[in-house]
């Protein structure tokens, strides 16, 4: 039986539902020796800003129970260098290229989205309104439904490609934010970004991260992510992309069952740079074993 693996994410057709999560996959090229990138449904590249950013000082990462904290601080080459130096190579890969973007002002978001929308080879933008690491950035946009809607609409107005909005879990009611970005025109929603956390060296009585706090990722956050995806799926009608602690196909399938149309794999890439290919293979095996011919028939089949 030939399996149908293709999914449609708000007008963006992907050959399968497995993508990489922004910030864990560099600009794609870092993984070329470890993985056939053509296998991926989409490559979501590192978050880009209008101008290059150096990010935070080290230490930037710390392992915690079943996960890790990071405070990279959105280091990136800037949108223009990405288009000149990274995109030409990445465009030759037979996977959709989704570019994650962020800004410190509404105007920044708009400029970056405009530049990318006119670049050859970008399939969609993913708007990061949620990164918790930057003092003036992310958090303010993503935690207020009105502001989240404003950013979404502003980006949508200048984009000729689908706009995915990535939500932060560090809010009281994520469905409120989800509804707001949906009514502002978002084509799809991805969630969750990292959960803000902290870790302390008790001998030195100092934080393990130079930035003091960081974003928690990995299997530790998967139950939270799954719950939030389920809530958002029930609150909006646009497609949802599940992200958070996916380590293997079983984890990915859980997200599909609660209603995600696709998934993003993040921290797992650090433990095994070829993990996404394994996940695709194992999802296909699960479908064959369970008589599921079309991946879309798995989506939203949670029995309650």
């Amino acid at each position, binding site marked *: 039986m030939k399996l149908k693996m293709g999914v449609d994410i708000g007008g963006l057709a992907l050959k399968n539902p497995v993508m990489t999560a922004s910030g864990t996959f560099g600009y794609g090229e870092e993984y070329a020796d*470890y993985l056939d990138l053509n296998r991926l449904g989409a490559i979501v590249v590192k978050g880009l800003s209008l101008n290059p950013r150096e990010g935070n000082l*080290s230490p*930037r990462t710390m392992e915690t129970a079943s996960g890790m904290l990071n405070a990279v601080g959105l280091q990136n*080459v*800037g949108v223009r260098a990405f288009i000149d130096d990274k995109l030409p190579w990445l465009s030759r890969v037979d996977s959709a290229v989704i570019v994650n973007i962020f800004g410190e002002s509404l105007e920044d978001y708009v400029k970056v989205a405009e530049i990318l929308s006119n670049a050859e080879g970008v399939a969609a933008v993913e708007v990061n309104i949620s990164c918790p690491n930057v003092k003036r950035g992310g958090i303010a946009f993503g935690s207020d439904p009105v502001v989240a809607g404003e950013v979404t609409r502003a980006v949508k107005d200048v984009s000729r490609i689908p706009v995915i909005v990535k939500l932060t879990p560090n809010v009281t009611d994520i469905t409120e934010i989800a509804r707001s970005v949906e009514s502002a025109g978002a084509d799809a929603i991805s969630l969750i970004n990292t959960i803000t956390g902290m870790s302390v060296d008790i001998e030195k009585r100092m934080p393990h991260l130079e930035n003091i706090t960081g974003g928690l990722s990995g299997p530790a956050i998967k139950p939270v992510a799954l719950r939030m995806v389920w809530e958002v799926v029930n609150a909006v009608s646009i497609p949802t992309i599940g992200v958070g602690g996916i380590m293997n196909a079983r984890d990915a399938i859980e997200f599909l069952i609660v209603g995600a149309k696709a998934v993003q794999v993040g921290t797992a890439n650090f*433990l*095994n*740079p070829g993990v996404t290919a394994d996940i695709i293979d194992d999802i296909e095996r699960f479908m064959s074993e369970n008589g599921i011919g079309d991946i879309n028939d798995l989506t939203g089949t949670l029995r309650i």
Partner: protein
Amino acid sequence: MKSYISATVFSQRETARGHFLMALKTSASFRESLPGQFIMVRTDTNDGLFLPRPFSIYSVYSRGGDTFVEILYKVVGKGTEVFSGFTQNDVLNILGPLGGGFDVPSACKKIFLIAGGVGIAPLSFLAQRCRKEIHGAEITCYMGAASSEALLGVDRIEESCSVVKISTDDGSRGYSGPVTELFRCDMDLYVDDTVHIYSCGPNPMLRSLHELLKGRQIACEVSLEERMACGIGACLGCVVKTKSGGVSDGPARVCKEGPVFDINSVDFGDDSG
């Protein structure tokens, strides 16, 4: 495609208090390892460890058709603590060799190694290679440790070097004081601009070395250490500030642009130049 491969623990012993030497039986592909390169090591056993950990390669050798990689490390946290409990025939997953190695010009005859603590690991590998590959190489090693009990790999480094000079912080063996001080005492006597220096050790030691060499035209490469999540240049967890790199690519990744850097390209935060 490159990937993690399983490697069997061939031997492991505590060579000094809190310091371990582990030999892993692995694939022949590791024979191409260069001094200065590192491996990522991960365990799938249920011991609460999550991310892989980076280790400098201490040596690579073949015996009876098998290839072995050695790592020499200090227990500094949970990861190294778990690894130190592994014994013969336990299985780990390793990825490598990763990063770039030391650059040793073939015409280079006078080599100085300056090691602090467990920083001896990549330098010992380098000394072995230079001894074998550079005819007439004159290798001098300065090695420092907290105390005589904490000195690592002295016998092995003595096999490859013409001269080994030792310092300890508590004076229990050799010179009493930092290894960079011991080096400084000798420096003006016989270190001229034709020598090549290779160093690995704690950051304060490297910073002192940088100070010492300021204004001199001596080639010096240092191997740096940072916490890493991926080891392949993706997570951006292990960056260091550099002076040379343009802003567009941001700070340098120890795993990718390093772990070996020209000492003058690293911004040790000590001055402007």
